[in-house]
Structures are given as structure tokens and as C-alpha cells.
């Protein structure tokens, strides 16, 4: 048995992308870390009372205030003179980051605390039964944005959280994906080496809410990146410093493996709209891989 800082025995679903991403983050951060968790899947499955899967000090308060509680933890560590040797990580899901906890997160970023905020983006409120959140992508079928005769799912595009975080003028903003676990670890280590507020958003496939086969977790994560719907980018001091170049696969390859986009496969008009979102991302961040033969 491995001595991971997030132990086995947690109650995540079979094939959960979030549990592997959370393990990548905490193992990269090391044992000198205090974790503050928002309410969400991660909090529920990792700490089913009276047991905890965490091997580090871990605090849960409310749905919205991991960023605020982490600010207090950081201030306390500074008072004790221990901040230099202890990392503080605040983490939550997409709902508690982009909707409910946005004010606490914004306050943390603005006050300049030395904290890494990690958002595990599974693109809906999965814990309570797949309701749409601010980070749910366009045309997704969820229980509160159902598809049917007059609707093709979620009517709004995804909230640009990395850009919102970056607009606070913080030193490091990055996106990662559970499809690329080593990339998550590299970005966490890089973020923790920088002083000041950091924001990391990790795309985590959810077999239950996205309705794909549990063994496709990694594959689905990679496809989202490869087709341009989830660009892996890094901002350092406000400037785009690195992107992951992609071969720009058609978005159908990503959509067809997931039940939440099943209604789109008979609707080419809507697929064109999603392809337009991917093309916009590819253009905006310069994701396209330059082939040698072409240039």
C-alpha cells in the first residue's frame, strides 16, 4: 500500500477524476501543507465522519469560504513565524469557486495572501445531483438545464475563471487537466515556489455527471484539451507565458463519448457552435501546433 497523503478508502465514485487530481496536488505539495476545503464532492468523499482520507491538517467550514478561512490560516502561520516552511492550499469545486465562493476567492486574491487556490472543475454541482454551475459549458445537459424539444441544454458559455483570477494581477494563474497528471504536479510545484496568491484550475472528468465509462476518465480529459475546449495555459504576472500546443481534433470526438452531450449528435448546428468556441480558444491562446510541412 502506498503512503499517499490522500489515502485509499475514500468514497469517491469508481473512476473519479477529482480523487486522482486531488492526490496529485497534495502529493506534489508535500506533508508540510494545510488544506482548507470548500463543501463539495471532494469534502464529502474524503472525510466521511468519523474517518478522514487526508494525511495533512485539513479544515472544512462552509460552502463558500475556503479562501477566507485559508486567509486566516495564513495570517495565523505568519504570526507564529512558521509561514516560510508551511504551504497553505484552499480548494473547492467549480460551483464553490465560480458561483458561491467567488467573493471570498476575489477577496483572497486582492489581499495578496500567500495561498494556492485549486479549483477542481467537473463542470456542474455533481455532489447534489448534476445541477448547472457557472463553469458548465455551453449546450450541456444537466438536471437544471435539460435538453429537449425547445432546448439543447445549458444556454450560457463557461465563465472565464482563469481570466477573472488573472485580472486581479496575481503572480500565477494556470489551468491543468486530470488527463495530464504529471503536468498537474509540475504546476503545483511551480505555484508553491512563487510567493503570493496563485490560482490553479483543474479539469476533472466525472463519470457520473458526464455519463461516460469510468475507464475513459483520462481519455476524456485528454480529448477536451486536444480539441481546444479546455486550453492548458499559464499566466505569470499577468502575461500568458506558456500554452500546451494541440493538434486540434474536431469537437465531436470529445462530445460523442459523453452522455451529457448525446442530444447534440443529431444536431449539427449546435456542434458548429461548440466548434466555434474551440476555434476561438485556439485562436486566442495560439494553441495550434505548427506542422513543419505546412510552414
Amino acid at each position: 500500500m502506498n503512503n499517499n497523503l490522500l489515502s485509499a478508502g475514500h468514497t469517491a465514485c469508481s473512476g473519479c477524476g477529482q480523487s486522482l487530481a486531488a492526490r496529485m496536488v497534495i502529493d506534489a505539495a508535500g506533508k508540510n501543507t494545510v488544506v482548507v476545503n470548500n463543501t463539495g464532492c471532494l469534502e464529502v468523499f474524503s472525510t466521511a465522519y468519523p474517518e478522514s482520507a487526508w494525511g495533512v491538517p485539513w479544515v472544512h467550514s462552509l460552502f463558500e469560504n475556503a479562501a477566507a478561512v485559508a486567509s486566516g490560516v495564513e495570517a495565523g502561520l505568519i504570526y507564529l513565524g512558521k509561514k516560510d516552511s508551511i504551504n497553505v492550499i484552499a480548494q473547492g469545486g467549480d460551483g464553490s469557486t465560480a458561483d458561491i465562493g467567488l467573493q471570498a476567492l476575489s477577496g483572497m486574491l486582492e489581499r495578496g495572501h500567500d495561498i494556492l487556490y485549486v479549483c477542481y472543475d467537473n463542470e456542474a454541482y455533481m455532489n447534489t445531483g448534476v445541477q448547472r454551475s457557472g463553469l458548465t459549458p455551453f449546450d450541456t445537459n444537466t438536471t437544471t438545464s435539460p435538453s429537449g424539444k425547445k432546448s439543447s441544454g445549458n444556454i450560457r458559455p463557461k465563465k472565464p475563471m482563469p481570466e477573472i483570477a488573472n485580472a486581479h494581477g496575481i503572480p500565477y494563474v494556470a489551468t491543468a487537466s486530470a488527463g495530464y497528471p504529471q503536468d498537474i504536479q509540475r504546476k503545483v510545484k511551480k505555484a508553491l515556489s512563487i510567493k503570493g496568491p496563485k490560482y490553479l484550475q483543474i479539469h476533472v472528468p466525472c463519470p457520473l455527471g458526464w455519463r461516460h465509462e469510468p475507464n475513459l476518465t483520462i481519455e476524456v480529459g485528454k480529448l477536451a484539451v486536444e480539441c481546444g475546449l479546455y486550453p492548458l495555459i499559464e499566466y505569470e504576472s499577468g502575461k500568458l507565458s506558456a500554452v500546451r500546443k494541440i493538434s486540434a481534433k474536431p469537437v465531436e470526438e470529445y462530445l460523442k463519448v459523453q452522455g451529457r452531450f448525446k442530444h447534440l449528435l443529431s444536431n449539427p448546428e449546435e456542434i458548429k457552435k461548440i466548434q466555434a468556441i474551440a476555434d476561438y480558444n485556439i485562436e486566442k491562446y495560439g494553441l495550434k501546433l505548427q506542422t513543419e510541412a505546412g510552414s
Partner: protein
Amino acid sequence: MYGPLIVKPGSSKKNKTGSWRVEIRPQFLKKNCIGCKMCLLICPEGCISGEGKNTYDFDPMYCKGCGTCAAICPKKDILMIKEEAKD
């Protein structure tokens, strides 16, 4: 202090989630393994252990049988087989 406290780290190990597994389980063939560690890295339970080529194996007490290890293995050295089948 307020609220419920859990003092023992990693106490979730008491919870043997292997009982969740239905129908299929992984089988590590240990023949063509190149030691890339991808299975160990991506197991959502973190229940795969090993050191070096052809040593990796899963812990049946915790494996939920999702099959991500079999899907990611570059040498197809991990199979998903019926629960009752013998190694």
C-alpha cells in the same frame, strides 16, 4: 475547538472499498511492463503499488474496478477480467 474533529490521519483506510467492485477486476500480467508508473499515478484510489518493472499490482481491498489502469497501460499489460476468474 468547534465541530467534529478527526485526529487520526488517513483513517479512511478502515473503509474497505473493494466491496464496491462489481463483475470486473484488473489483472496485472507482469510480462511486458516497462515501469512507466502511469497506472500507479492515475489510479483514482491510489491503491496500486510497486517499484520497478513487472512489480506493480493493485490492492483488492480498495480497488473499485474502474479500469483506468487497463485503459492507460501503454503495453496492454493490464487486463480487466471477470471477478471470479483466476490469475
